[in-house]
């Protein structure tokens, strides 16, 4: 009973954080000088990318643990994180072109960052398809675990693509020290959006993990 109550509080807190992040991004943050208001997409585009990377990292770690220990709970965690990672990388691939059109005058261009992100999306779609289409669930889980580990190789490639290749994509703002190329007024809304998206991701991960675990139990009971 206590856990249900704390889950409800977590859901409420994460939505409150998302609403506040919208306020900071749309109203409180200063308007960017060259791009104008369209730059505000950045406050949700980058956190979505960060959360998807985090999700795929969890897929990788949980897959390694599943191969080492063979406990189905690790497989459920990997599957849950992959489902969420796909949603967030889809958001990245949808909000990116909406930002690009007014700035680059095109929705899409096959440059390194965009192409590697698209490949990442395809990889994890294939991951879920592999799980779905394998007849023996245990075998499917093992295949998916190997795929989940190999698939993660693309994540650092997506992150480093704008450093390694010449691309149209804006310069990095994370990991460059001192808030990167961000104006002082933009740093707090950005950090807060990162926090809000991470909190929402953790909430969704807990809820979906619980649901997927229960579904696995139901399948086990029915197959007895």
């Amino acid at each position, binding site marked *: 009973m206590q856990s249900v109550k704390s889950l409800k509080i977590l859901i409420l807190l994460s939505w409150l954080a998302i609403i506040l992040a919208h306020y900071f991004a749309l109203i409180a943050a200063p308007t960017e000088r060259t791009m104008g208001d369209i730059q*505000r997409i950045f406050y949700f585009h980058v956190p979505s990318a960060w959360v998807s990377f985090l999700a795929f990292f969890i897929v990788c770690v949980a897959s390694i643990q599943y191969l080492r220990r063979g406990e189905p709970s690790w497989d459920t965690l990997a599957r849950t994180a992959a489902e969420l990672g796909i949603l967030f990388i889809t958001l990245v691939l949808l*909000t990116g072109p909406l930002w690009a059109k007014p700035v680059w005058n095109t929705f899409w261009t096959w440059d390194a960052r965009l192409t590697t992100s698209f490949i990442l999306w395809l990889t994890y779609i294939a991951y879920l398809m592999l799980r779905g289409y394998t007849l023996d669930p245990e075998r499917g889980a093992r295949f998916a675990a190997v795929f989940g580990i190999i698939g993660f190789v693309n994540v650092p490639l997506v992150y480093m693509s704008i450093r390694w290749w010449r691309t149209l994509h804006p310069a990095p703002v994370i990991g460059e020290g001192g808030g990167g190329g961000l104006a002082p007024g933009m740093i707090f809304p950005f950090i807060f959006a990162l926090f809000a998206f991470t909190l929402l991701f953790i909430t969704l991960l807990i809820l979906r993990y619980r*649901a997927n675990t*229960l579904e696995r139990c*139901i399948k086990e009971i029915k197959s007895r």
Partner: protein
Amino acid sequence: MSDLHYLFSAFFVIWCALLLLMLHTVNKLARAEKELKQLNIADRGTVQK
């Protein structure tokens, strides 16, 4: 389309996706809990018989 159209399209996409995902997750969890409860009751019933 103006910049604001693109900006609000992006926010609309984000809101729809996050809300739908949350609703789907809560619904999935509620359904699984209900089914497991029913299965447990049925299981106990079988044992008692």
